[in-house]
C-alpha cells in the first residue's frame, strides 16, 4: 500500500533528521551546565520512551518506574564498585535482572486495573526503595555506595566528560526511540494498542492480553534499568534518594506532558519538564527563601492538571490539534469575509 510506505518513509526521515540534529547539537553548546542538562534529558528520555510503550500504547500505568531505574543503577554500581565486574556486563546483568523482576512482580500486579494497578505499582516502587535504604551491607543504605563507580569506557575512550557522555547517552536514547518505534508499528505494537482500545475485543481476536501487559511492563523496566545504569556511571555515586516516588511521578508527568502515544512525546515531555524544573530551581529560592524541595510536587501536580484540562493528548498531538483547529477557524473566517 502506497500510503503505508509513504508514512513509514516519513517516520524514518524524521528520525534520521533528528539523529543528525542530536549529534550536531553539542558542538554548539559550550556551557558545561547545559551539556549536563542535555545528558540528563537523554537518560530520562530512555526511561520515558519505555513508560510510553506501557502507558500510551498498552494503556497501563506504572507509578513505580523509578525503582526499575534504581535497580539498573544499583546493579551497575554494586557489580562494578564492589565486585569489579566489567561495566558493560553489569549493565546487561541489570537490564536482564530488572526485566525478570518486573515480569515476576507483574504477574500478581497486572490482575488489577486502573487505580488499583496504579496503587500496586506505587507499592512495588516503595518496597524496592526500602530495599535500597535498608540493605546497608549491599547498598550502603541512605548514605549510598561508599566506593566510587567507574566511568564507562570503550577501548581507550573513557566517557568522563559531559561532552563525551552526551554521545553515549543519546546513542542509547535514539536506539530506544527507534526500537520502540519498530515495536509500535508491528504485530506486537498493534496487540498492545488493541488492549488500550478495547481489552475485551482484543481478547476476542485471540490476543493474550495478560501476557502482553507483562511483556511490555518488563520491556519498559529494561529501558528504565539501562537508563539507571547510565545514570550511575555518569554521576559515579548513587544513593536511594533519586529512585523514590517523586522520580516515578516525575517520569509519569513527563510521559503525559509529551503525549503518550507518539514517538516524539517522550523527548518533548522530558525536555519541557526538565527545563521547567531547572528553571524553578534557580528562581524559587530567590522568591521564597524558605521553600524546600517539596515545591516540585506542587509544580508537577499543576503541570499535570493544566495538561489534562487543555491538552489531554499531551503536547505533541495537542499542539497539532490546536494548530488544525486554528487553521480551520481561519479558513472559516476567510470564507465568510
Amino acid at each position, binding site marked *: *500500500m502506497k*500510503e*503505508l510506505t509513504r508514512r513509514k518513509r516519513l517516520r524514518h526521515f524524521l528520525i534520521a533528521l533528528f539523529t543528525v540534529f542530536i549529534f550536531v547539537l553539542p558542538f554548539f553548546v559550550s556551557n558545561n551546565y547545559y551539556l549536563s542538562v542535555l545528558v540528563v534529558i537523554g537518560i530520562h528520555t530512555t526511561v520515558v520512551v519505555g513508560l510510553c510503550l506501557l502507558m500510551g500504547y498498552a494503556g497501563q500505568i506504572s507509578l513505580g518506574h523509578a525503582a526499575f531505574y534504581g535497580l539498573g543503577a544499583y546493579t551497575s554500581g554494586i557489580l562494578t564498585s564492589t565486585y569489579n565486574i566489567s561495566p558493560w556486563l553489569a549493565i546487561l546483568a541489570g537490564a536482564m535482572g530488572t526485566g525478570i523482576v518486573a515480569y515476576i512482580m507483574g504477574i500478581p500486579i497486572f490482575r488489577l486495573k486502573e487505580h488499583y494497578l496504579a496503587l500496586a505499582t506505587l507499592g512495588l516502587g516503595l518496597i524496592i526503595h526500602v530495599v535500597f535504604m535498608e540493605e546497608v551491607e549491599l547498598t550502603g543504605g541512605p548514605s549510598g555506595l561508599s566506593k566510587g563507580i567507574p566511568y564507562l569506557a570503550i577501548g581507550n575512550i573513557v566517557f568522563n566528560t559531559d561532552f563525551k557522555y552526551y554521545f553515549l547517552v543519546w546513542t542509547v536514547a535514539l536506539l530506544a526511540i527507534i*526500537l520502540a518505534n*519498530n*515495536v509500535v508499528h*508491528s*504485530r*506486537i*505494537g*498493534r*496487540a498492545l*494498542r*488493541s488492549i*488500550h*482500545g*478495547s481489552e*475485551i*475485543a*482484543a*481478547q*476476542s*481476536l*485471540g*490476543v*493474550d*492480553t495478560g501476557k502482553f501487559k507483562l*511483556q511490555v511492563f518488563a*520491556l519498559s523496566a529494561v529501558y528504565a534499568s539501562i537508563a539507571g545504569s547510565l545514570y550511575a556511571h555518569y554521576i559515579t555515586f548513587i544513593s536511594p534518594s533519586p529512585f523514590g516516588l517523586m522520580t516515578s511521578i516525575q517520569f509519569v508527568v513527563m510521559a503525559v506532558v509529551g503525549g503518550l*502515544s507518539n514517538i516524539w512525546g517522550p523527548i518533548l515531555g522530558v525536555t519541557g519538564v526538565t527545563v521547567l524544573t531547572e528553571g524553578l530551581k534557580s528562581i524559587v529560592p530567590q522568591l521564597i527563601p524558605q521553600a524546600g524541595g517539596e515545591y516540585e510536587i506542587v509544580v508537577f501536580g499543576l503541570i499535570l492538571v493544566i495538561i489534562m484540562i487543555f491538552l489531554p493528548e499531551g503536547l505533541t498531538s495537542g499542539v497539532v490539534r490546536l494548530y488544525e483547529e486554528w487553521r480551520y477557524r481561519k479558513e472559516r473566517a476567510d470564507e465568510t469575509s
Partner: protein
Amino acid sequence: MRLLEINNLTRSFGGVLAVNDVSFSVDKGQIIAIIGPNGAGKTTLFNLMTGIYPPTHGTIMFKGTEITGLTAYQIARLGIARTFQNLQIFNNMTVLENVMVGRHIKSKTGFLGAIFPVWPVQREEREIVEHSLDKLAMVGLTDQAMQPANSLPYGRQKMLEIARAIALEPELLLLDEPAAGLNSTETRELIDTIYNLRDQGVTILLVEHDMETVMEIADRLVVLNFGNKLAEGTPYEIQNNQEVITAYLGEEGSGC
C-alpha cells in the same frame, strides 16, 4: 456436521438467571438467528460462548471438544470470532490497523521480531496488510483504510467490526445485532456480506431484533425469553408458534 453444541447452559448474575438451562446445536454452514425480547439473555449467551465469563452450569462443545472454561483468546484461536452489540472498535487505530489486529493469531512475530524487524518479519507484515485490505474490500471500506477508525459513521464502524472478526478466518462467526442502527441500504449490504460469508463456509450465529431481516436470512431460529429457550425451528415454524406469538404480543411488539 455438528459444529457447536450447547448443553444445559446456565448463567446467573447475583439472583438474575440471565441464561437458564439452554440447549441447542448448530450445524456447519448454517445461518442461525437468536431472537428474544430485551434482556432475554442473547448477549449473555454470546459472552458465554466466547469465554468472556464462564457459565454457572452446562457445557459448550465446539467441533467435538469442550470449550467451557477456556479464556476468550483461547476460544478465538479455535476459530470463533464475534462482533459486539455496543461497538468495541479500537479508537486509537486506523481502520486498516483494526483489521490487522484480526490477523494476530494468523501471524507470529514476537517481541524480538518486533524490535528488530528482519526480512521475514517485514514479509509477514506485508501479508497481514494484504489480507486485511481484502477483508476491508469485502465490507466496502477500502477507501477509508487509512482513516482513524472513530472517524467512521456508526454503520460503517459496525461493518468494520465484521471485517476485523473475519480477518481471523473463523469457522463460527457470532454477530450481536449487526443490523441495529443501519439504514436500509446498509442493511442490504450487511445481508449480502452475511450470504457471502456463508458461501465461503463460515457458520453464522446472529442476534437480531429486525424480524424481517431475520426471517429472510436465517435457516433456523432459537427464541429466548427471560433466559429460557422458548422455541427453536425454521422461520415458518417460529412465525406460527403460539408461545412465541404470546411472548412477543405480551410486549405489544415493542422493542422488537
